[in-house]
C-alpha cells in the first residue's frame, strides 16, 4: 500500500513539475526540484519492492467500474530505469536546452518531458485496460510533442508526424487487444485469465500484443519511425525515449503474457527469431550511419531485438516448463533493459554534448574531440565498451545470460530458433563492436575533419554530472551484478509464476568469479596504461602539444588521409542494406576528375514503404470528389444513410426470415 502510494505521489510530483514549468515566472528550480523529488520517491519505492517488499495495490472506481493500480516486481523493474534516466535527464536538460529559447520551445519541452515521465509511471502501475490505454496515449502524445520540439525544421516535423501515425496504428491494435482481453476475462480489469481450451486464442492474444506493442518497441518491420524520431528529438529526450519509452513495448508484451494461463510453444521461438533478425538489422544499419544520433537509434533497435530474444527464450521456457530457460531468458531480458537504459542514455547525453559543442550531427565533420572534450570522451568510453558487450561492463553480463540460455535450449531440443538466436546474437555483438569502434574512433580520435571540431569544448558540470553517474553505474553494475540477482529473481517470479528463484542460487558463484577476473583485468589494464604512459610523461609538455594523436608511420599526415567513418565501415558493406554507393568507372592512365557518392536510405521505411504509400495516397485522392464543400450535399449523405438504414430494416425481416 505504501509503495504504490509513493509511486503515485511521484507521478503527481512530475505532473506538478510539468505544470509549474509551463507557467511563466515560476522559478525553474521549483519545477526541477519537484521532478527530482518524484524520481527519488519512485526509485525508493521500486527498490524497496525489489529487495523484498510485498506487492501493493490500490483499488478504486472509474465511472462506477472497478479499476486497479498495482506495483509488483515487473512494474518496479521498469520504474527503476524510468526514474533514473528521467531524473538525470532533467538535470542534463537544464543547460542543454535553456528555458528561455525562442518560440517557447524550452517551456514546452519541460512541460511534455514531465508529462511523459508521469504518464509512463501511471502506465507501469495500470492494471485496467482503459487506464492503461489512457496512460499509453498520454505517453505517445507527449513524446510526439517532444520529438517535434524543433518544429521549425521540416525534417523534424516529418519525423514527428511519422512517429504519430505509427504510434496510433499501434494503439489501434492495442485497443483491439484490450477488447479481446475484456471479452475473455469479463471486465476491463487485468486479472489472470482462466485456462482456455484452445491455444489459438492465447497465441492470437500474444501475436496481437507483439504487433501492437512492437510498434513502440521497434521490432523489425515496425521500426521505421524510430531512427528519425530519435535523431530529431533533443538529446536528453532521445535518451529517455530510447532508454525507457521503447521498453514500454516490451513491458506491454510481458504484462499481457503474465495474464495468460499458458504460452503456446511456437510463439516463443517466433519472437526469438524476430528478435535476432531485428538485432542484426539494427546493427547492420547502425554501421552505415553518418549521423551519430541516428547510429545510436539503430543501435537501440539492435538492443530491443536482443531484449525480444530474451523474452522469446523465456516464453519457450514457460511453454516447456523449463525453469532454467525461464530464468535465463526473462532474467537476461530484464537485465538487458536496465543495462541498455544505462549505457544508451549515457551515449545520447554524450551525443548531446557533442551536438551542443559543434552544432553538427555529421560524424565526418568531426574528429579528434578527445583532446577538446576530454571529460565527455572519458564518460562516453565505458558506454561504448558496454554497448559492444565487452567485460567488465554491464551489457556483457546480460548478453552472457542469453548465451547461456541459448546454449541450454540448444541442448534440450529446440534447435532452430536457438541456433538462429546464437548466430544472430554473436554476429550482432561483433558488428556492434565495429559500429561503436567507428563511432568512438571517428568522433574522438584522429584529427579534426572540419572547422566545427576546432572550437569544441567540454559541457558545463550540470551536463557532465549525469554522464559521470551513468558511466559509474555501467561499471558498478558490471562488477556488482551478483547483488542484482535476487532482484531479477523477484521479477522472474512475476513473469513465470511458480518458477523457483534460480538465478541467485545458481549464478552467484559464477558471478563472483567473473567479477574477480574482471577486477584483475581492470588492474592489469590500469598497470599497463601507466607503463605505456610512462615514456610519454617524460616528454616535456610543450612538445606534447604538437604531437598528433595517431602517427602510424606518417611523418606529416594530412587530415584527409585519415580513415573516415564510412571508409572504416566499408569492409562490412554487405551487411548494410540501406547503403547505396555511386562510383564512376575510372578508365585510362590519367582519369579525369571523378566523384564518389554514398547515400543511406532506410531500407524498409524509405525504400519499401514510402513509394507504396505515395501511390495509395494518389488513389485515395479520387475520393476527394465526395467532399465538394456544399453543405446540402453533406446533408444529402446523411439523408441517404438514414434512408438506407430504414430500408434495410424493412427488408431485413423478409430477407433473413
Amino acid at each position, binding site marked *: 500500500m505504501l509503495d504504490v502510494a509513493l509511486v503515485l505521489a511521484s507521478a503527481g510530483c512530475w505532473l506538478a513539475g510539468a505544470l509549474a514549468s509551463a507557467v511563466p515566472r515560476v522559478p525553474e528550480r521549483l519545477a526541477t526540484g519537484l521532478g527530482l523529488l518524484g524520481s527519488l520517491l519512485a526509485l525508493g519505492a521500486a527498490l524497496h519492492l525489489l529487495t523484498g517488499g510485498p506487492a501493493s495495490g490500490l483499488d478504486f472506481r472509474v465511472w462506477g467500474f472497478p479499476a486497479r493500480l498495482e506495483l509488483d516486481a515487473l512494474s518496479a523493474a521498469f520504474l527503476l530505469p524510468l526514474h533514473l534516466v528521467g531524473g538525470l535527464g532533467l538535470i542534463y536538460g537544464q543547460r542543454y536546452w535553456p528555458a528561455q529559447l525562442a518560440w517557447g520551445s524550452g517551456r514546452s519541452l519541460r512541460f511534455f518531458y514531465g508529462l511523459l515521465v508521469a504518464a509512463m509511471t501511471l502506465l507501469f502501475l495500470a492494471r485496467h485496460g482503459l487506464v492503461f490505454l489512457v496512460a499509453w496515449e498520454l505517453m505517445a502524445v507527449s513524446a510526439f510533442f517532444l520529438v517535434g520540439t524543433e518544429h521549425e525544421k521540416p525534417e523534424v516535423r516529418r519525423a514527428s508526424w511519422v512517429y504519430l501515425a505509427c504510434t496510433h496504428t499501434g494503439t489501434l491494435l492495442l485497443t483491439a487487444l484490450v477488447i479481446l482481453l475484456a471479452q475473455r476475462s469479463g471486465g476491463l480489469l487485468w486479472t489472470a485469465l482462466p485456462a482456455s481450451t484452445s491455444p489459438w486464442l492465447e497465441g492470437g492474444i500474444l501475436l496481437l500484443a507483439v504487433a501492437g506493442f512492437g510498434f513502440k518497441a521497434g521490432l523489425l518491420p515496425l521500426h521505421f519511425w524510430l531512427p528519425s524520431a530519435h535523431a530529431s528529438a533533443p538529446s536528453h529526450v532521445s535518451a529517455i525515449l530510447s532508454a525507457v519509452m521503447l521498453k514500454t513495448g516490451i513491458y506491454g508484451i510481458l504484462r499481457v503474457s503474465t495474464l495468460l494461463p499458458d504460452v503456446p510453444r511456437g510463439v516463443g521461438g517466433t519472437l526469438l527469431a524476430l528478435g535476432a533478425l531485428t538485432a542484426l538489422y539494427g546493427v547492420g544499419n547502425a554501421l552505415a550511419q553518418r549521423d551519430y544520433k541516428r547510429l545510436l537509434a539503430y543501435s537501440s533497435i539492435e538492443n530491443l531485438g536482443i531484449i525480444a530474444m530474451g523474452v522469446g527464450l523465456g516464453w519457450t521456457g514457460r511453454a516447456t516448463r523449463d525453469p532454467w530457460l525461464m530464468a535465463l531468458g526473462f532474467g537476461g531480458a530484464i537485465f538487458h533493459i536496465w543495462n541498455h537504459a544505462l549505457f544508451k542514455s549515457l551515449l545520447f547525453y554524450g551525443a548531446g554534448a557533442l551536438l551542443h559543442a559543434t552544432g553538427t550531427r555529421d560524424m565526418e565533420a568531426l574528429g579528434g574531440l578527445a583532446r577538446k572534450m576530454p571529460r565527455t570522451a572519458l564518460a562516453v568510453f565505458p558506454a561504448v565498451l558496454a554497448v559492444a558487450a565487452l567485460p567488465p561492463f554491464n551489457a556483457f553480463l546480460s548478453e552472457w545470460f542469453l548465451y547461456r540460455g541459448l546454449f541450454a535450449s540448444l541442448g534440450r531440443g529446440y534447435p532452430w530458433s536457438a541456433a538462429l538466436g546464437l548466430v544472430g546474437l554473436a554476429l550482432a555483438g561483433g558488428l556492434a563492436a565495429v559500429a561503436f569502434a567507428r563511432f568512438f574512433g571517428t568522433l574522438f580520435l584522429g584529427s579534426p575533419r572540419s572547422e566545427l571540431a576546432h572550437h569544441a569544448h567540454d559541457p558545463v558540470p550540470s551536463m557532465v554530472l549525469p554522464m559521470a553517474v551513468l558511466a559509474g553505474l555501467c561499471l558498478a553494475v558490471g562488477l556488482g551484478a551478483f547483488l542484482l540477482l535476487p532482484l531479477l529473481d523477484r521479477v522472474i517470479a512475476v513473469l513465470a509464476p511458480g518458477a523457483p528463484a534460480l538465478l541467485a542460487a545458481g549464478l552467484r558463484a559464477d558471478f563472483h568469479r567473473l567479477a574477480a577476473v574482471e577486477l584483475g583485468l581492470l588492474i592489469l589494464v590500469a598497470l599497463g596504461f601507466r607503463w605505456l604512459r610512462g615514456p610519454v610523461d617524460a616528454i616535456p609538455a610543450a612538445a606534447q602539444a604538437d604531437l598528433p594523436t595517431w602517427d602510424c608511420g606518417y611523418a606529416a599526415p594530412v587530415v584527409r588521409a585519415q580513415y573516415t567513418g564510412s571508409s572504416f565501415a566499408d569492409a562490412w558493406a554487405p551487411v548494410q542494406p540501406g547503403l547505396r554507393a555511386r562510383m564512376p568507372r575510372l578508365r585510362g592512365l590519367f582519369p579525369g576528375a571523378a566523384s564518389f557518392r554514398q547515400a543511406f536510405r532506410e531500407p524498409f521505411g524509405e525504400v519499401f514503404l514510402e513509394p507504396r504509400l505515395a501511390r495509395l495516397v494518389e488513389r485515395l485522392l479520387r475520393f476527394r470528389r465526395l467532399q*465538394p*464543400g456544399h*453543405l446540402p450535399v453533406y446533408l444529402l449523405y446523411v439523408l441517404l444513410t*438514414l434512408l438506407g438504414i430504414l430500408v434495410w430494416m*424493412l427488408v431485413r*425481416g423478409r430477407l433473413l426470415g
Partner: protein
Amino acid sequence: MLPDLLIALTMLSNFSLVATSRVSKAIQFAVLQGVLLGLMPLAMGLGRHFHIVLLAFAAVAVKGWFIPFLFRRALKQVHIQREVDPYIGYTVSLMLCALGTGLSLLLAHNLPLKPGTEYALMVPASLATLFTGFLLLVSRRKALTQVVGYLVLENGIYLFGLLLVEDMPALVEAGILLDLFVGIFVMGIVINHIRVAFDSTDTRHLAELKD
C-alpha cells in the same frame, strides 16, 4: 380525435413547406407546425402531469415566439430576397415529399411499436416530417431556409419523442429543446458570418472554404 387532427395538420403543413416559394411563408409554416406539435401533449390528455405541461409551454414559447423573433431579426439584418431559391423545383420537391410520406407510412407499418400505443399516425407523421426537414435542408440554397429545414427536422424528432413522453419526459423534451435552441443559435451566428465574409447568405459560397 384531437391528436389525429393535429397530426394531420402537421403532415399537411409539410407539403405547404416544400411547395411555398416565399421565405417568410416557409418560416410561418414551420412556426405553425412547431406550435401544433407543442400542443400535442395537451391534446393527448397528458395535462395531468405538471412537468409535461411545463415542457409543452416551453416548447410553444420557444417555437412560437422566440424562434420567429430570431428569424425576424435575421431577416431584417441580412436583407434577404423573398424568393426561396431552391436547387430542386417546387413540383419535384412536392413529389419527393409525397414519396417520403408514402415511404414513412410503409415503414411505420413494418416497425414494431410499443404495445399500447394509441396513435397509429404518430410514427409515420414523425418520419414524414423528418424527411421533409431533410429535403428542405438539402434542396434549399439560402442559409435561412436551411435553418427552417433544421427546425422541421427537429419537429419530426419531437413528434417521435412524444411516443416516449410518459416514460422519460423531462430527458427527451429538455434535450430536444436545448438541441433546437443551440442549433438555431449557432446557425444564426453562422448566417451572420457568411454574410460578413461573402456579402450574401448563399451557402454555395461556403464551398470556397474547402481545402
